[in-house]
Each structure stands twice: as structure tokens, then as C-alpha cells.
């Protein structure tokens, strides 16, 4: 063996341990990828056959147990409506707080307290945001109804908020301070520096963070349980109960009928594809901005 001549001092036992441990690390990496492969396999296997049933994307679920279970149109549109509203709430507030932390608060005590509690918020279980909105908006029948789609959107936006704030802060800090100083030296007021220098420079990073937050919010079920509840029909009114993809999967899993279980798989595939698309866009924008 030529290896022995090049490394004569390493004993056979040490070389064996090295080999075994390296093999162990490789095995662990493969084990880590197995669940992903299995989940993708079953999603495609069961989900695609559901996709091919007629009217899967163009009809609403009927809710009837024996007859035609229908499609998932209202769930897709409901999810998109709720996430759109949640995005409108959480992105401006999130970027605003991020701007406060980088441009004004900096390393002051108040900014550090805010930073700490934003970190705390990232650790709060998603169902707690649902409970919060339930206490504040649902039991009080705020806005005239108990359950409503917009209340679910508020719960989801609370969940997205810490993700947006943290990513915004990281991205805003990447803007070189020489750019800010140059603008200030030219006599630009602070607000123009923020809106014409800081925000445009970090736009792509802010979009990446926002897209990741949207992808996260999209798949959440728990905050919707006691805020939106669910409905079968198609509605565009955010003041009513609404169908959503995660909730449809959640209820269809418990059905004993195979046709309805298959709808759960088809919906899951749809949901995962949409979430992955958001992730993909986020990564594309991030890598393009890095090249520029």
C-alpha cells in the first residue's frame, strides 16, 4: 500500500477510526436526506393522481361525504388572499422596524430591547398567535363577526413579522455607511437618505427576506384554526370565514374516505409547489444581487 509509505506515523487503529467516523458522517448526511426524498416521492405519487381528477383546480370542495368531493379552487384563492393581506401588513411594519434598528436605534438600550423581543417572537409557537388574535379580535366579535379571513391574516402577519424584521436588519446593515455619509454630506436630510439611498440599495435583499417570510406564512395552519375557521365555497370577502389550503388538508386527513384523503394529497402537493416557488424566487433574487 502506497498510503503507508506516505503516512507512516498514523497507526492502523487511528486510520480505522478515521475511516469509520468519516463513513458515519456521510451516512448521517444520507439519513438526513431520506425524509425529504420520501416526502417528495409520496407527494408526487399521490398528489399527481389527485391533480388529474377533473375540475381539481376549477371547482370548489363540496363538503359532501358520499358524492363528488369537488376540487380545491376556493382553498387556493383563499390562501392567496389571506397571505396577500398578511404581506401588506407585515412587510411595511417589518421593514420599518428594521429601519429603526439600523438607522436610529443602532446599539441603544431601546433598540437592543426591541431586538431581544423580536428574537423572542421568532420562538413563539405559531398556535400562540392564533390564540392571541382569538382573545383580542374573535371573542370580542371585532368588526361584527367572530371568525373572519382578515383576522387570520393578522395572525399570520404577526408570525411573519419577526422574520421580516430580522432579515431586513441584516440586509440594511450591509448598506455601506460611506453611502449614507456621502448623501448626508451632500446635504440630504435623513428621510431622503433612507428612501433614496438605503432602501433602493438594499431592495433585492429586502425582497428576498419578504419572500421567505411569505413562504413561511403560506403553509401555517395553526394560526388559522381559531381565527378564520373554514368554509367550502369561494368567497372574496375578507370579513367572512374562508377556505385555505392548509386547513383543507388538515380536515381532509381525518376523513375515512379515500377520495377525500386523495384531495388532501393533491392540496399538499399544490401547497408545497407554491411554497417552493416562493423559496426559489427568493434564492434567485438573492444570488442575482450578489453577482451585481
Amino acid at each position, binding site marked *: 500500500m502506497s498510503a503507508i509509505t506516505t503516512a507512516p506515523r498514523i497507526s492502523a487503529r487511528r486510520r480505522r477510526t478515521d475511516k469509520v467516523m468519516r463513513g458515519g458522517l456521510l451516512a448521517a448526511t444520507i439519513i438526513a436526506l431520506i425524509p*425529504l426524498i420520501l416526502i417528495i416521492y409520496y407527494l408526487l405519487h399521490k398528489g399527481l393522481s389527485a391533480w388529474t381528477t377533473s375540475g381539481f383546480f376549477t371547482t370548489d370542495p363540496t363538503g359532501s361525504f358520499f358524492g363528488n368531493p369537488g376540487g380545491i379552487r376556493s382553498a387556493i384563492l383563499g390562501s392567496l388572499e389571506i397571505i396577500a393581506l398578511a404581506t401588506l401588513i407585515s412587510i411595511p411594519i417589518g421593514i420599518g422596524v428594521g429601519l429603526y434598528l439600523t438607522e436610529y436605534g443602532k446599539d441603544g438600550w431601546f433598540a437592543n430591547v426591541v431586538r431581544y423581543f423580536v428574537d423572542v417572537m421568532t420562538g413563539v409557537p405559531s398556535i400562540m398567535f392564533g390564540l392571541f388574535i382569538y382573545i383580542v379580535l374573535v371573542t370580542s366579535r371585532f368588526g361584527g363577526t367572530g371568525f373572519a379571513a382578515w383576522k387570520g391574516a393578522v395572525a399570520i402577519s404577526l408570525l411573519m413579522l419577526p422574520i421580516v424584521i430580522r432579515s431586513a436588519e441584516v440586509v440594511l446593515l450591509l448598506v455601506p455607511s460611506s453611502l449614507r455619509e456621502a448623501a448626508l454630506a451632500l446635504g440630504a436630510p435623513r428621510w431622503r437618505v433612507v428612501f433614496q439611498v438605503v432602501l433602493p440599495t438594499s431592495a433585492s435583499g429586502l425582497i428576498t427576506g419578504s419572500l421567505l417570510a411569505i413562504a413561511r406564512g403560506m403553509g401555517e395552519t*395553526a394560526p388559522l384554526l381559531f381565527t378564520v375557521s373554514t368554509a367550502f365555497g369561494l368567497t372574496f370577502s375578507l370579513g367572512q370565514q374562508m377556505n385555505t389550503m392548509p386547513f383543507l388538508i388538515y380536515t381532509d386527513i381525518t376523513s375515512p374516505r379515500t377520495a377525500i384523503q386523495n384531495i388532501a394529497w393533491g392540496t399538499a402537493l399544490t401547497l408545497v409547489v407554491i411554497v417552493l416557488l416562493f423559496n426559489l424566487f427568493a434564492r434567485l433574487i438573492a444570488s442575482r444581487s450578489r453577482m451585481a
Partner: protein
Amino acid sequence: MSASATTATGGRSSLERSPAGRIPDQVLKWGLSGLAALILILIAYFLIRLIGESGHVFSTYGLNFIFGNDWDVSRNIYHGGALVFGTIVTSIIALILGVPVAVASALFINEMCPRRLRSPLSILVDLLAAVPSVVYGLWGVFVLAPKLLPAEKWFASTFSFIPWIGGGIPTLYNYFIAGLILAIMILPIVSAISREVIATVPQELKEASLALGATRWEMIRMSVIPYSRSGITGGAMLGMGRAIGETIAVVLVIGSAPKIGSHLFAQGYTLAAVIANEFGEATGIHTSALFAAGLVLFVLTLIVNVIARWFISRGSHGTRGTGATGMTIASASGSDQ
């Protein structure tokens, strides 16, 4: 106000902005500060309301709500000991199964695999985090639980001499399945933080041990792991925080039995799962008990997260990777000698 007005009309230097010109600046500054304060107000308000709503239960049961073992909706008795037990047991199973795999894969990706494979492998592991929890639940119910049942039966009867781990007759949904799903769900976050921490190990340290004749593994064991131990522990704790609070995937595969299971493959319940399951039909003290379960859950995740942050900041060696600010990098490296 009048003083500034006089200076504006009188001896204002040409470089100074007019008072009107300063207004947008003030609006932006206080508007953004207000938004930041809003976050704190929201969290404080939530805690106050949660304590208020669950006060009824705590005044009735006291600490028995956390330690007593009797949750019976039909008799209207709510001692949540079994829920706390289930929450902790499932998240510990998740840690035992998930953390070694996550850390080992992070070591492989950072220290062993060819550079070309590094980022594709990271992206693949990160993809697990993109799968919504309800999809994990769906997969657990229809694939994982039924396929693993025979293996669980074999395991329980073969290792029946080990208390709690073996023995008993496995049910379709149980602590182990819930823990296994949680292990898969925390894998990406533990792996990502481990990768980040391992990447900060100084190249000189690694080269020094290689130069002294260490093998690859010895270099990992003696240079990489000691340096990043604290950060990896923090990552594992963050993963545990996730596991404690995970709701939808767990509620589908935990079996929903509010009692302390007699063995690993018995049905159980968790704090988050009981809220999701029973909230819809709860009234009176039952609702209050579920809010109390929420409060206990909140405090548990809070404690775990605070410990996690402490480990991560201690293990950061002056270059905080997880969303740190330039200011904290500067201050941390100052205090870190």
C-alpha cells in the same frame, strides 16, 4: 417653539435646515420608533391577556394544573401534567434522534464533502424547513405511522426489558412517531445553525491539528467540535423550542390521549395539540384551562429560547452569524478579548 422661530428668521446659518424642512425627519424618526415600540406593546398586551384568561384555572388548581395527572373534559377536571409530560417527552425524542444527524451532516457538509457539493447539499437539507407542518402531519398519518408499526412492535417486544422504552403494545399513533416527525422538522434549523457555527472555526486551528499529524476525524474532534460546541448546543436548544411548540404535525400523530403513557409507543398528548384539538368545543373553565396550557407552553418555549440564545451568543466568538448587527459584532469582539 418661539426661540427656534426667532433663530430661524434671524441668525440661522446657511447650512441649517429650516424648521419646516426638519419635519419629515422627525416624522420618520418617531414613526419608526413607534413601530418598534408597537412590537413590545403587543407582546406585553398578549401576556397580560393570556394571564388574565387563564387566571381562573390557576386560582382553582394552583400548581396542580402543571403537575397533576388528570385531564378529563367529561368531569370538567383539568390537571395538565400529562400534557406537559407529552410535550417534554416528544421534544426530547426529537432531540435524541434529530441532533446527532443534524450535527453530523453539518460536519460532513462543511469539513468533508467536495466544495462543489457544499451548497447543493445545504439547500437540500434546508428544503426540509420549507415543507409546511400540515404536510408532515399528512405524511406521518398515511405513510410513516402505518409503515413503522411492525418495526415498533418488533422493537417493543425485543427490548421489553428496558423500562418505558420497551414493553407494551405499540399503537398506531404514539410518542415515538410524534418525536420522529419532530426530529425531521428540527433537523434543518439545527443543521443550519451548526453549519454556520462550524464555518467560523478559524482555519489556523484546523491546519494546526492537521500539521501535527491528526487525521481528518481527529481534527474535527479536537479542533472543530470544541470550538463550536456552545453554538451547536444553542442550535439544538432552538430546535427543542420548535419541537415544544409544534402543533399541527403533532396533533395528527400523538393519539390525543390525555394521560401519561406507560411506554414509548403509547398514545399521549401535548400542550399545543390539546389546544388545537379541544379549543373549538371548549366553554367556561375548559377554555380557561386551554389558555393556561397556552401560557405554560409560552413560558416553556421562552425558557428554552433564552437558554438557546445564551449558548449561541457565548459560542459566537465575536462573529455572530445569526442575524447579528455590526454593532454587536464590534461589542462582542471587544468583550471576547
